[in-house]
């Protein structure tokens, strides 16, 4: 029993060391993605942090189970899945860049344009048809451009 326990301990420290290195490298980018999704600001993003912590905990629990899988993709998939399940909580924007968009539009836009995920993969990840992903992406780009334009004219008028 004692041998087994020390075995678990060694496994835990090995896993923890690898996991720490992964988080040190990837957390910044993943937190940025989460913050874009929850439409929070760079300095105030408690929802994004909670989302990322949960996704990373899942990644930790599955660490090393399938060695071929990229841990970044695993964490991103969990993050996206969690956000999609709780999207109704993030309907209103909280001052982020994508506040003007709906949660699903944010998801598609962030996956396609920030994370650079291919249309087919994004569709599989979200459980949507590829055509729908393309349409939502185009609509979100147009909406963002329109928002930026109206913002610009408003600012121009104010100046």
């Amino acid at each position, binding site marked *: 029993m004692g041998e087994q326990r020390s075995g678990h301990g060694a496994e835990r420290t090995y896993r923890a060391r690898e996991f720490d290195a992964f988080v040190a490298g990837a957390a910044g980018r993943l*937190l*940025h993605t989460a913050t874009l999704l929850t439409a929070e600001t760079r300095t105030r993003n408690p929802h994004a942090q909670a989302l990322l*912590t*949960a996704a990373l905990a899942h990644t930790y*629990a599955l660490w090393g189970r399938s060695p071929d899988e990229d841990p970044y993709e695993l964490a991103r998939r969990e993050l996206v899945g969690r956000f999609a399940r709780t999207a109704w909580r993030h309907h209103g924007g909280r001052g982020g860049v994508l506040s003007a968009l709906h949660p699903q539009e944010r998801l598609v836009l*962030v996956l396609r344009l920030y994370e650079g995920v291919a249309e087919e993969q994004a569709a599989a990840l979200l459980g949507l048809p590829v055509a729908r992903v393309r349409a939502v992406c*185009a609509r979100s780009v147009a909406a963002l451009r329109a928002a930026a334009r109206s913002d610009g004219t408003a600012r121009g008028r104010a100046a």
Partner: protein
Amino acid sequence: MTRHEDKEAAVRRLLDTPHPPVPGDLARRAAERGSRRLHRARRVRRALWVLGVIAVAVFFAWASVARPWEVPPAETTPPLDGW
């Protein structure tokens, strides 16, 4: 098409802002939570195994006492009297 790509590039620039600062204890908290989950899953798996083993043992004990494969003595045969 190029116009569309231009628009996408503009949105990409909009999204590509500096990363937010990561809280220092994020990795530790995530690892703790993950290892709690792992231990819970391990305990549940172990409990299910123990339950399964107990169920098998109980079944064999019952079977060896009740012997359900043996044909029960006939109860409907009339008693054989005056032979």
